């Protein structure tokens, strides 16, 4: 009984909060739990309107998605949260970059924790993106009407890999230097324009201070913003494409459930 009492108290507390003037001026919606009120609350909020107004409870269980997309978003948020304080201590200049990495390791309070968290989250994100894509692929969730969101997903995979690659140079140690040397040489294997791409990527013919600066700007500005832009589209499209994919709720399945014979005939006709 105490449990329900507490929950009620919490709900009342939230209702009170939603009723305040400050809340209403910021979120443009007040209390009330009718479908209209809820839909408005979602729709009028720039962040929340990326998401569906309604989600099936079943889709929130682990078995539906394994939370792979959400976990990917989680690592991305960790990367932003740890990346910004890391930027406070880092100069993208040779050879200061390496000294800054050493300082993060040895003298900055919790610097090693920040750096390791950033690094492990980056590894986890690459893994999770792949896992997410495999899941989507083998579930067949890329099919109409979600094919465009699959394309966005592929772009996001590319963004993730580029973020990972550009971040690899920033410690400015031997590992970084040679990894980027090898990586950029792969780019120069492209026919005709390979050398140009190589030059454009590094800002020169070898990995040097210019390359470091370029990779820094890409890693901290251009790629994260681009990724955020596509993440927003990705989420918005989930809503527009009919919510999370669930085999049972697909129109074709429903039609088949309603008229088993029709589908069976159609299959035979094929």
């Amino acid at each position, binding site marked *: 009984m105490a449990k329900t009492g507490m*929950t009620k108290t919490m709900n009342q507390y939230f209702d009170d909060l939603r009723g305040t003037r400050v809340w209403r001026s910021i979120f443009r919606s007040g209390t009330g739990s009718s479908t209209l009120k809820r839909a408005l609350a979602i729709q009028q909020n720039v962040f929340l309107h990326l998401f569906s107004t309604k989600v099936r409870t079943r889709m929130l269980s682990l078995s539906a998605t394994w939370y792979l997309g959400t976990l990917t978003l989680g690592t991305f948020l960790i990367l932003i949260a740890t990346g910004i304080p890391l930027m406070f201590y880092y100069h993208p200049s040779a050879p200061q970059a390496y000294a800054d990495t*050493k300082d993060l390791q040895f*003298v900055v309070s*919790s610097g090693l924790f920040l750096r390791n968290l950033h690094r492990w989250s980056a590894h986890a994100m690459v893994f999770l993106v792949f896992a997410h894509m495999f899941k989507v692929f083998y579930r067949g969730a890329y099919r109409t009407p979600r094919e465009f969101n699959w394309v966005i997903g592929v772009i996001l995979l590319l963004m993730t890999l580029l973020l990972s690659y550009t971040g690899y140079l920033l410690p400015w140690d031997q590992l970084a230097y040679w990894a980027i040397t090898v990586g950029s040489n792969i780019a120069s294997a492209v026919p005709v324009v390979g050398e140009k791409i190589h030059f454009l990527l590094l800002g020169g013919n070898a990995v040097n201070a210019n390359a470091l600066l370029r990779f820094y700007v890409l890693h901290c500005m251009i790629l994260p913003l681009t990724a955020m832009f596509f993440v927003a589209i990705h989420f918005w499209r989930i809503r527009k494409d009919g919510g999370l994919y669930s085999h049972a709720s697909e129109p074709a399945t429903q039609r088949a459930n309603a008229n088993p014979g029709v589908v069976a005939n159609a299959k035979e006709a094929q």
Partner: protein
Amino acid sequence: MNDKLTSLWQRLFGDSVRAFGVVSLIFLASLAIAPAKNFFSEWRHYQHGYLKMVRNRSDANTLQRHFQGGIQQVWLPELGVVDRCTSCHVGLKEASLTDVPTQPFRTHPAIPHKIEQFGCTVCHRGQGAATTLTEAHNSTLAWEQPILPAKYIESACGQCHRGSLPGTPQLNQGRNLLSRDGCVHCHTVKLPDGTIMKATDDPPSLSHIADKTSREWVYAWLKDPQAYASTSTMPNFKLSDDDARDMSAFLIANSTPLAGDTATLTAKASSDPAAGASLYGESFCASCHAVQNAAGNMVGGDVGPELTRVGSKVKPEWLQAWLRNPRTYDPGTAMPHYRLNDGQVATLSGFLLAKADSDLLANVHLEAATPEQITHGKRLVSDYGCASCHEIAGIKKPENFAPELSRIGSKPVTQLVFLPGMQHTLPDYIATKIKQPRSFGQGLKMPQYTFTPAQIDSLTTALLALNDRSNTLPASLAVGATPESDYQPAGKAGKLMTDLACFSCHRINGHGGDMAPDLTWEGSSVQREWLVQFFKNPGTLRPSLIRRMPRFNLTDGEVNELTDYIMTVYQNPVIDRESMPLSGYSQGQVELGKQLFYGKYSCQGCHIVDTKTDKGYIGPTLTHVGSRLSGAWVYQWMKNPQALRPGTAEPNRAMSDEDARALTAFLISQKGAAAKEVAKK
């Protein structure tokens, strides 16, 4: 069991609020690890330990006042130094902490530099930025250079100090060995000042070797140079019997006779050992040449080759020609041209030829060489780079025969090949490579040297000083070496001085050896009459020295030529002979000088004026100084001896003009009367 787990799960995650709370707590606890790790860091642990140790000391107050908590660092941007070593090594600057047995809390030994000036890693290596022991001291994946073992620490001095320092005997010895034992014949060493390190040894030319010795001796020598002379600097190439046979065949066949060298014996070698030994002694051969005595000890200097078994090596006619005038066979030799007469040549050659070892060549039996053997020998001689050291007719001195060593002290460990069981560090690699060069792989050419462990450490020290830092040092920090000048005296006297090899022992204007006094200002220093007498019969000036100036049997003309040149050319502009005459001092001044000599300055500690009472034998005997030195020289010498002869042992006593004048008067009055009295007795 299963029930228990279920109920635990229920209790923790039973409803969403609980689950949220539990997960939040776990998350907070894991977040707390980061600040906790910060708080329990190693350097904080050491600082606590230091404060605990200091608390019980009598000087606790002073030490606690000096103590600064938190991470400490020495930051020197122009040297690329960020050294946080002092975060744990807290007591480095506390002079009173010498009684602490070990680091990290012991005080730093006294050095001429401040820690704030150079930091720690410039000398000790290691990772200065690190604040944990393993990262700072050891080599890790992210840092190759571990702490330099203390026995090589002098290499750090050599990064800035390019010349020799009184405080770094090991470094000085190592640098000497590099140039003296022939390392730089094969290995190029470009010094940080841009010059190439020059070899100071003088390996003999082999173009006329058949004049000098037999093929059997060459064979035995190639097989094991130290069997002939244990002090030989020629390394052992570990040649097979066939290779040594072919190389000796080529060297003998390649040799051309030299006019005047194979002259028939003009005098029969005398076999009077007593006369020979006394001539060997009188000529001070032992100043440069060593002979192993019966007890196995080396007696003599190391300028020339060891003569223990010379009779088994040289041909008698060559030896006589050499003793008559060594410059015929080797124009650049360090050996002086003694003006020996035929009788002396015969006596000395007989004495030397008797120094033979019948065992040396007993087992060497060589057939006449075939043309194939000679061709093969020639190939071997060029393969082993013999011409890097020796002049050999028909074979060019190879360029860059061995790897350059100009930056060996910074060679990355990843580029080295280590032997099993070896420590994977650069100093260990260098030391082992010098000790057993051939063990690092098949087909390596570097020969086996016979360095002592101390010499290997010295060489390693000198090589470690040749590194990236020494080459990229800010110019303001480099302390240059005084380069050897190529001074050559001019004219007839100059020729005579070359002939007598004065520069093998004496130094003039920055050129020459260090066995005998620097003669740059000799003309200002001595009196002409004394110099003439000295050339005719060199006496002893320093009782403590065994090595002395030999008598060269010069003619009067030669003596005059040399004396005139020295008295005219080797003049110091500061010294004016007229200012301090050789006579005319008042008795009072001489008396005052005497009092100063025995009283205030206690000169008798090192010098002898009165042979009956004085015991000093470190400096020159001064009984005759009034007839040897000029007054002006003595006066200036009293004022500042180092200005006249840098590095002299004579202390600078900062004398007043009056004291110096009185002492000069006293010394100039010492014209040898006392010695004459002794002689009369």
